[in-house]
């Protein structure tokens, strides 16, 4: 069936050639289907100055099935649960035309703009909606404590 390797090779080469400033991606060992990335917390958000480590696993059917993303660094965010799993539209309405960079961009955009209407952690979403100051405070504390 699908051969993920060829496209992953190309995507990896492209990313290494022209990496975005806010992310640093590399392979785990020499396995093209396992990547790790460190995302810089976007400026002007409670995640600013933090570095968040992410595991990216590509299924054999990639790109026909989406990669699995997991936050290794603990983060306080309505769309990311304590296991580091992440909920975003890009995965539920996946298209084989999308690439790793699209996934990374999505991650960055939900850090900038959390979506409390579609939360993975309802409690955090509630605080985000009702008491933004408290949310920002806790998120900053988490960033300081875990995302060094």
């Amino acid at each position, binding site marked *: *069936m699908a051969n993920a390797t060829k*496209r992953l090779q190309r995507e990896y080469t492209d990313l290494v050639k022209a990496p975005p400033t806010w992310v640093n991606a590399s392979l785990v060992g020499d396995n093209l289907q396992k990547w790790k990335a460190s995302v810089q917390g976007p400026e002007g958000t409670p995640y600013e100055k933090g570095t968040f480590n992410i595991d990216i696993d590509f299924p054999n059917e990639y790109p*026909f099935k989406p990669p699995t993303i997991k936050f290794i660094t603990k983060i306080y965010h309505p769309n990311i649960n304590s296991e580091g799993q992440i909920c975003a539209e890009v995965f539920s309405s996946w*298209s084989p035309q999308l690439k790793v960079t699209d996934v990374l961009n999505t991650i960055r955009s939900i850090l900038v703009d959390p979506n409390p209407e579609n939360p993975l952690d309802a409690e955090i979403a509630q605080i985000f909606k009702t008491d933004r100051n408290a949310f920002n405070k806790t998120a900053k504390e988490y960033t300081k404590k875990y995302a060094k």
Partner: protein
Amino acid sequence: MTDDEMYEDYDVDDDSAEESGNESLDDENEYDEGTQEFDFDDGQQSQRTHSKLTRQRSFEVLNKNDLFSESHKIIKEVKDVLSIPSDAAVSALLRFMKWNKEKLIERYMENPEKLCSDAGVPNVMKLDAPPAKTTVSCLICLDDYAPDKVFALSCNHKYCLGCWKNYLEINVGEGPECIYTTCPAPKCKVVVHQDAFKAIISPEIYERYNSFILKSYVDDNPQVKWCPAPGCIYSIRCDRKERKEAVLCKCGFQYCFNCNDYDIGDHMPCPCSQVDKWLQKASDESENVTWMLANTKKCPECRSPIEKNGGCMHMTCRKNAGGCGYEFCWLCRGPWSEHGSTTGGYYNCNKYDKSKAKEDDDKAQDAKTELEAYMFYYHRYESHRNAMKIADEQRKNAHLKEQQILSKFDVRSADTKFLMEATEQLLRNRRVLQYSYVYGYYLDKKSQERNLFEYLQEDLEKHTNFLSTLYETSLEKLEDYQGFIKWKEQVTNYTRITKKFLDNFVEGVAGGLVSTAQH
């Protein structure tokens, strides 16, 4: 209550049920409604007094080919009405509209553009994009392809055929939802039509895709349901929404179309609502009952553990298996010698004798009494249910016995047919008996109908057990051809008697007892 009024209570006809405004009554009677004969076209109830219990055959067993031609008939009708040339386009529209032909035509007439775009078939006249003219870079595998190696739907998102194949085959592998697969482009809502699947994916996988289309035809159609028997490939069309009588699938499984449940099967003589109530109770009580039943399967004499693996209630604690030879009734665990009319005894095994419990006329005992009463019925229900569970094994054994008869007595295969008939009759009896204990449990404890019902039920138990014993006669006991013929005649006769008795029982319960027992 006059006869006429009584019949009003049975009324199946929707209109008259509404007139009487008595839906709960209608509910209670749902089962026997189904057993009456009606002319539904004009709502007139015909021959009601004479043939109200005639078996109805208003259902149809469908195989894959039937489903295929039915769905294609609908596709063709829609094509003709809406003047759409392509089967694939209409099929997609129909799937979007849950195979509701009338609604599709109506919505299409109202606003064809909107319907088609919602359904993911924006251009029903042209499903695919025109061929590419130059080399195309596939946005999935990122390679370049000659124009004849790429394909696009009407949305013109071009991908190479290899990526299309992977994409579609992976989607089919995901299951039934693949029939709504859209173009791979992000957020594109154009649905991949059947012809594209056919042209691109392998024939085996296309076969699977096709069966999902037929599945959607059945799943979306309230009048057609899959037979719930494991592994059965048939579905059944039953045009009567209100039909409550069992349907018989070609796989041999007989069941209530309304409940459509393999475990429940045919639950005559109970109405569906009663079965629901019973099963709910059974699951609520299951812990109590399991506990109390757990240690009660021992020989009443020597306490050897006994497993019941045959059909009959007449148990013998086998000496050659370390038992004591005691013969007893599985249901009441009393000595078998007290059972049956030949001994002049009284076959009282289907009666829960409340008077005994009443000796302890203590209110604190009521809950326990109720549980005991329930256990009584549950135990009998389970016993017959378990006999049903080993039905397949019983059929297999019957076939084995047939073979033995053929070789031992040198008879024609037609001479062993009676054995299978007896097997099926026994199974049918057990099923009716099983649900008769549900029915009995909910009968008014003091009513006259209860007496009559229990009398009939007891007779049915007796006949069933007798047939079962006769049926299980060991071939070794039949010395010669004459002995075999005599046995054969006995079994044949008794099968016939039992059948008649069972039919009378079912019809009697459905027709005669319900009317007054519902209060």
